[in-house]
């Protein structure tokens, strides 16, 4: 009797078909037949799509899920092919390595525990070979370390904290999304140009890891350009009424309010700040301004009128003018009737990138995939030339600086692209102090 670490139900499923009719009980391990966790031996390979389906980010999760389904269609040669037409890939529209891609879905609930339970059931029960998706950094880090232990690949969805590819980086985990440091590096010059270098900033920061890394990043980037930070105030995650944090801002001598908030926090804090009339005031002889460093389409939609003219940054936007973007927006828009969000884009791209890496490596073995993805240069995925850096598994590409559209013509162009910050400007060393303390470790194939 031998044993194995994680079940290989995927193998068993296909193995069982061949072995149907075997009446005698057999005790076995798939380890003897396979070289790594959940090695696919049948005609299909299973991807796991782990996204929030309940809780505050359920709509974002739904958008991610749609994009992932679209990616699977394109990999299997259905639909119009989307970015496979613009991205030079090793995929030929017949699945991956001759296997048709199927997928399972699960609900992260935006909680580390639930996300890990869901990911575990995909690995243990459904035999998933990779996990993709997610909508917060806590969940991304938790699932990433689970995948490292289990020996499968994790392609992170929306996660913006520096830690995901910083102090919590893992060999089996990859992040396409940008991070707080990049937001700061891209945003600061634009802010300096628009509002001048002599500004005094007041930060309201969601009181947990992501908020802190963003505050640190934005602060460093703006101070380097001559801004002064008057005050940084931490707000509890559960806050819905920010009035007691916003009320003292005007009297603090600050002339810019930076909201390091996301999701419901951001929607409420910016609306309430605007209700306080902050943007109609003149302080230190300058117009008072608000900045939301991390934007997403859905949250911007939730904030409504309040974001008009407010600067922020994004990983990608459907309004970009390049062939990859156009191909993706077309196939997504025609299928679902709305343009994709930037988290949908990331999840779509991550799924294709994984499949392409497998095809290039010629194997589903996680270690081979890691090797294929590390230091991989590609283009045609909507972000221009992009590098998956081997040292920390972070993607490097241009970053978008956005502004709330003053005169939107329809419900989808509420944000406009102000600047496409070139990749060189947002690059940093893998051991930059904000990312230090991490260790990729060795890739784990579960063998």
């Amino acid at each position, binding site marked *: 009797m031998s044993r194995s670490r994680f079940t290989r*139900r995927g193998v068993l499923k296909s193995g*069982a078909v061949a072995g149907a009719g075997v009446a005698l009980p057999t005790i076995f391990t798939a380890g003897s037949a396979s070289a790594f966790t959940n090695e696919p031996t049948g005609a299909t390979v299973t991807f796991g799509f782990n996204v929030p389906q309940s809780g505050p980010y359920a709509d974002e999760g739904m958008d991610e899920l749609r994009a992932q389904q679209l990616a699977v269609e394109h990999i299997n040669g259905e639909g119009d092919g989307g970015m496979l037409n613009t991205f030079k890939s090793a995929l030929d529209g017949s699945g991956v390595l001759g296997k048709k891609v199927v997928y399972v879905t699960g609900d992260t609930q935006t909680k580390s525990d639930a996300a890990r339970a869901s990911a575990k059931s995909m690995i243990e029960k459904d035999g998933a070979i990779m996990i993709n998706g997610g909508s917060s950094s806590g969940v991304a880090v938790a699932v990433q370390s689970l995948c490292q232990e289990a020996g499968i690949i994790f392609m992170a969805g929306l996660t913006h904290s520096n830690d995901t590819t910083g102090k919590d980086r893992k060999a089996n985990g990859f992040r396409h999304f940008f991070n707080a440091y990049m937001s700061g590096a891209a945003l600061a010059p634009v802010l300096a140009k628009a509002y001048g270098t002599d500004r005094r900033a007041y930060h309201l920061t969601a009181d947990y890891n992501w908020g802190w890394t963003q505050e640190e990043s934005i602060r460093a980037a703006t101070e380097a350009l001559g801004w002064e930070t008057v005050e940084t105030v931490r707000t509890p995650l559960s806050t819905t009424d920010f009035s007691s944090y916003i009320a003292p801002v005007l009297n603090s001598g600050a002339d810019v309010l930076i909201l390091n908030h996301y999701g419901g926090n951001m929607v409420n804090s910016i609306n309430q700040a605007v209700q306080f009339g902050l943007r109609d005031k003149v302080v230190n002889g300058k117009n008072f301004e608000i900045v939301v460093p991390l934007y997403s389409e859905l949250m911007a939609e939730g904030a409504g009128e309040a974001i008009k003219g407010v600067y922020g940054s994004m990983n990608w936007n459907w309004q970009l003018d390049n062939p990859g973007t156009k191909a993706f927006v077309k196939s997504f828009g025609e299928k679902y009737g709305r343009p994709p969000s930037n988290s949908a884009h990331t999840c779509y791209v991550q799924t294709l990138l994984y499949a392409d890496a497998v095809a290039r490596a010629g194997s589903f073995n996680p270690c081979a995939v890691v090797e294929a993805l590390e230091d991989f240069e590609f283009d045609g995925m909507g972000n221009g030339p992009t590098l998956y850096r081997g040292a920390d598994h972070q993607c490097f590409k241009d970053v978008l600086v956005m502004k709330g559209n003053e005169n939107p013509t329809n419900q989808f162009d509420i944000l406009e692209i102000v600047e496409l910050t070139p990749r060189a400007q947002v690059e940093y060393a893998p051991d930059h102090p904000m990312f230090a303390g991490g260790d990729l470790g060795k890739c784990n194939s579960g063998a």
Partner: protein
Amino acid sequence: MLFGLNKKDTRFLIIVVLLTLFTPFLMQPFAETSPLAQFNGGYPDLMAKVAIFGIFAIGFNILFGLTGYLSFGHAAFLGVGSYAAVWMFKLLTLNVFPAVILAVIMSGLLALVIGWISLRRSGIYFSILTLAMAEMAYRLAYSVLTPITNGETGLQLRPHDPRVLDGPGAPQYPNLFGLELNDSYFLRLGDHVFTFNVGYYFCAAFAILAFYVSLRIFRSPFGLMLRAVKANQQRMNYTGLSPRPYTLAAFVISGMYAGLAGGLMAAMDPLAGAERMQWTVGGEVVIMTILGGAGTLMGPVLGAGTIKYLENIFSKINENVLHQWFAFLPDGLENMVVWLIAHFTGEGWALTLGLMFMLVVFFMPGGLVEGGRRIARLWRKRRHGGDGGADGDELHRPARSPHVAE
């Protein structure tokens, strides 16, 4: 008279042990090739979760089922147990025993403090006190206590943890003297595949122990005292007995059960997140207990199993899966059926949960155990056909207090 139990209880305990041992079969009723394989729950994580939340609920039931004190703050003990266990993994050794022991001790201490304060009040005031303390623990753990708890991300193992007791060749995963908890053995019988997981049996052993202890408490004079607190605290006061020491003891015991559950959770999956302390988790165990049947021995376990199964299995039935199931229907009808069912599965799993709560409380007052008992009675009545006299007579007698084992 085995283990100090009477015959009926011994039989009951043996049934529970057998059920626990054969869970890998019971939760895996469908062949891998069958379309119903989606409903199989016999994979390590879910089996262990059912055992762990079973322990959590059994412990909660000692407090709530016996004394009637409704705590909304037991999530705090679950969280503290997890944090204690992961710290033990980081500092001392990846062997699970020290971790589980520290988890129980730490949560016991916290329970002593919180219980000592909260038990000064009763009724809803007690509930709010416990809720407030757990919510404080959660919020602090998520924010300012990040150096200890690692906040949003959760406390996790790192390659460079000291682990002073582990040698260089020691396993890199929580283990039982070298046997790693995520090891599994498989048994194939035709198209069926069954998984036997070390971690599950480790949790199951504790679950049986937890169940046995709770059975003994239910039967002991101490248990009787606790019931007296629920029945009539004033009368108890008049007889010169102070209920406080008894309720405090029950509170601490149930807190230690929660800590054990938290420690086991960390052992099965070495990451401790602050969300474990949120009031919703404390509320979940309340719901599990009430759903299964508060005050009964099996009820809480049943409730825990039902909710965890729903959460993990139903949430994964997406439209794609539904289309596969109903592919045999004509297209229009298929889409309609899928559209309808999709509201209750996949992202709609919570709706099913809510509806189930309402249906159970409407039609099975007293929970699933009570409902099962009623169905059994109905069935018996039908079998004995026309034996209505005895039943009719029963109505005029005070209701027999049912055997807790039922």
